[in-house]
């Protein structure tokens, strides 16, 4: 379990969180869809930018949550503020990336389906 590398250790801890598993699953599906729909270079770049940024914010949020749990295991006003602001950041960027990836992929899906 114990790995010398901080990078690998961080990944091992982070993938215990349900939200990160969810986001990674969604990202893999999106990448498969992007590959299937034969997108241009620019579209690939946008999709990867959105997905990577989403993971980054998610990992930051996890780090903040762990830090808050270490500092104050019991209830505290600032602890609630910290966790809520972190998850608000996550939610907002998730909405943005759903919309952005949707703008790129939905017209192509409609074209394939033939509507």
């Amino acid at each position, binding site marked *: 379990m*114990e790995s010398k590398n901080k990078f690998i250790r961080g990944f091992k*801890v982070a993938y*215990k969180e*349900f*939200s990160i598993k969810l986001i990674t699953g969604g990202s893999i599906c999106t990448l498969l869809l992007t590959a299937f729909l034969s997108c241009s270079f*620019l579209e690939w770049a*946008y999709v990867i*930018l*959105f997905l990577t*940024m989403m993971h980054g*914010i998610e990992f*930051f*949020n996890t780090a*903040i949550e*762990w*830090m*808050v*749990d270490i*500092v*104050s295991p019991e209830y*505290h006003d*600032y*602890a*609630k*503020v*910290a*966790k*809520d*602001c*972190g*998850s*608000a*950041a*996550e*939610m*907002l*960027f998730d*909405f*943005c*990336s759903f*919309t*952005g990836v949707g*703008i*790129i992929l939905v017209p192509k899906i409609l074209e394939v389906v033939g509507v």
Partner: protein
Amino acid sequence: MKYTREEKRKFGIFRLVNSFKYSIDGLKYALVHEQNLVIHFIIAFLVVLFGFLFHLELFEWVILLFAIGSVISAELLNSALEATVDLITEEKKKNAKIAKDIGSTSVLLFAIAAAIIGVLIFLPKLIALF
């Protein structure tokens, strides 16, 4: 070293709804207490309005969405970080100052990048207008 964070194993629709509730709580708190976030939201609204006026292309909309989302998320993460620092120490400390300063620098960098993106998209259209 063992990680001792309490693991929540319950899955379900209630947990999802609750997490949205917490997110909206955080957004409300940040909107009341952080002036910069209100400014970011006003600028984002103006940008979207001008985008509709200038009939932007799809790719320009996508990159604008990325810029808006990353700036606002960075601001919210910054306020989360500030709350964490306040939780740890109430008095003035050097490390607390460094943490808060670096957090706000990240927001500044994102804001500068977003401003450059906005200028790159809107300036040629404004010049073509006159």
